């Protein structure tokens, strides 16, 4: 392997990692601002202009707090839990195509870390792995509430993974590929998958709310029943890791939704922009468009959180098993029939 390739990928990974952390940091700020806006308050406005330094202040607070490990806890797993949660949240970004190949100094640089031909399944695997951080942390705390929360998280993730997988199958029937790069390239211009798969997108989005443990499906950290949920016993930066992992998960699932259903870096009039801006700046403009979509999705996540009350546990399971899974299967069948019909005539 040549050194240029490794350096190129290394820089890309570092940039993506940095961006995900910054987005996660500012998501905490945005969450409070959005909540304030929806509840007719001001939100954080003391640290810096409009309170934009608030995430830094929060970070310093997290680091400075006392680190407590309960005596009866399993020490190794107690520390491994948050680390695993953050790791699983971060590695999902590796297969997302952030932009079309960019020309730097006469060399075409792909803005995607790894174009593996099972990209969709990889994302799915990472999502299903994410629950281990919560489960291990909840179990290792040796606290009944944490354990209950870990169990809730596990059953919730397993239930919603099925519907999520089924909704993706309908999409794959259309795209004929598992590579995220090809899926995005197929949605050139305004030919987005969401127009063909509205039901599939709806199911996928509901499931990603459940997979990221966001309201109205945040049963694992339901304060009224479980104190703080799986991170009840955590303090200092280990708690910070869990909170961070949630925001990075939100960022990654927004990116995945934008990529799979809303055209990724594609936008109407991109061919005109490509001739206008040239091969170096047009891809960057595409990246900006993708981030705009991601920001919209993150805003939607927050909007829902501060609007809809939390589900009851049986309602959550009913929705997953008796509504979403049959709907997803029906969606697959209808998609299959339509595709067979279109191919024949």
């Amino acid at each position, binding site marked *: 392997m040549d050194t240029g390739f490794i350096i190129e990928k290394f820089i890309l990974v570092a940039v993506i990692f940095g961006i995900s952390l910054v987005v996660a940091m500012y998501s905490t700020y945005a969450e409070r601002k959005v909540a304030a806006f929806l509840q007719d308050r001001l939100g954080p406005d003391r640290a810096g202009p409009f309170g934009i330094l608030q995430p830094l202040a929060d970070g310093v607070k997290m680091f400075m707090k006392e680190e407590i490990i309960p005596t009866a806890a399993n020490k190794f*797993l107690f520390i491994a839990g948050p680390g695993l949660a953050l790791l699983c949240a971060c590695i999902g970004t590796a297969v997302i195509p952030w932009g079309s190949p960019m020309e730097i100094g006469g060399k075409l640089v792909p803005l995607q870390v790894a174009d*593996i*031909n*099972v990209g969709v*399944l*990889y994302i*799915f*695997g990472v*999502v*299903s*792995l994410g*629950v*281990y951080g919560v*489960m*291990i942390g909840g*179990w290792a705390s040796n606290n009944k509430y944490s*354990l209950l929360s*870990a*169990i809730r998280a*596990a*059953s919730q*993730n*397993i239930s919603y*993974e099925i519907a999520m997988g089924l909704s993706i199958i309908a999409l794959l029937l259309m795209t004929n590929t*598992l590579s995220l790069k090809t899926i995005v390239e197929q949605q050139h211009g305004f030919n987005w998958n969401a127009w063909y798969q509205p039901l599939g997108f709806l199911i996928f989005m509901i499931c990603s709310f459940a997979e990221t443990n966001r309201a109205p499906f945040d049963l694992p950290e339901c304060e009224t029943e479980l104190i703080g949920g799986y991170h009840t016993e955590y303090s200092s930066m280990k708690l910070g890791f869990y909170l961070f992992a949630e925001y990075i998960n939100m960022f990654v699932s927004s990116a995945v939704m934008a990529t799979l259903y809303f055209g990724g870096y594609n936008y109407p009039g991109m061919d005109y922009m490509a001739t206008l801006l040239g091969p170096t700046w047009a891809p960057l403009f595409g990246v900006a468009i993708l981030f705009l979509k991601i920001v919209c999705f993150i805003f939607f996540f927050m909007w829902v959180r501060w609007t809809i009350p939390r589900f009851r546990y049986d309602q959550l399971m009913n929705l997953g098993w008796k509504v979403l899974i049959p709907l997803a299967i029906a969606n697959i069948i209808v998609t299959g029939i339509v595709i067979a019909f279109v191919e024949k005539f």
Partner: protein
Amino acid sequence: MGTQVFYFVATLSIICSLMVVFAKNPIHSVLYLILTFFTFTVHYVLLNAQFLAVVNFIVYMGAIMVLFLFVLMLLNLNKESEPLKSPLIKIVGLIAGCCLVVTLIGSFKAASINSPLVLQNQGLGLVENLGKELFGPFLLPFELSSLLLLTAMVGAVLLSKKDEVES
């Protein structure tokens, strides 16, 4: 490079699978099993079987082991509550294990691997080729195994339903 990685990962899988058996705490056992499955995923990647690798990742690591962990956490096994195993079960286990060893040795001798196996079609593990194989020559076994799984699922649902009616 490939061989070295293989030996490294193979050692890891053996160590992890031994730890599954020797770990005192059932939860640790399951966690070691998860690591073992992870090393299997790496083996699949080394064999260029990307689809199998990812499916192993999703199904075994992401779903089945989560359920294992889930059940163990619910049971909360410890020394006091662990049911004592009768000597009969131990003997049965020993005999079954010996049978497995004999079968494995027999199959290894029958295969008589002197030269390393070479994958005839390098791209066999990719999604497209695997799908063509599964839905072409192997359609009947594939459908039969899915039927078997469906039967098991229906059976499990039926068993749990019966309890509900009685209570």
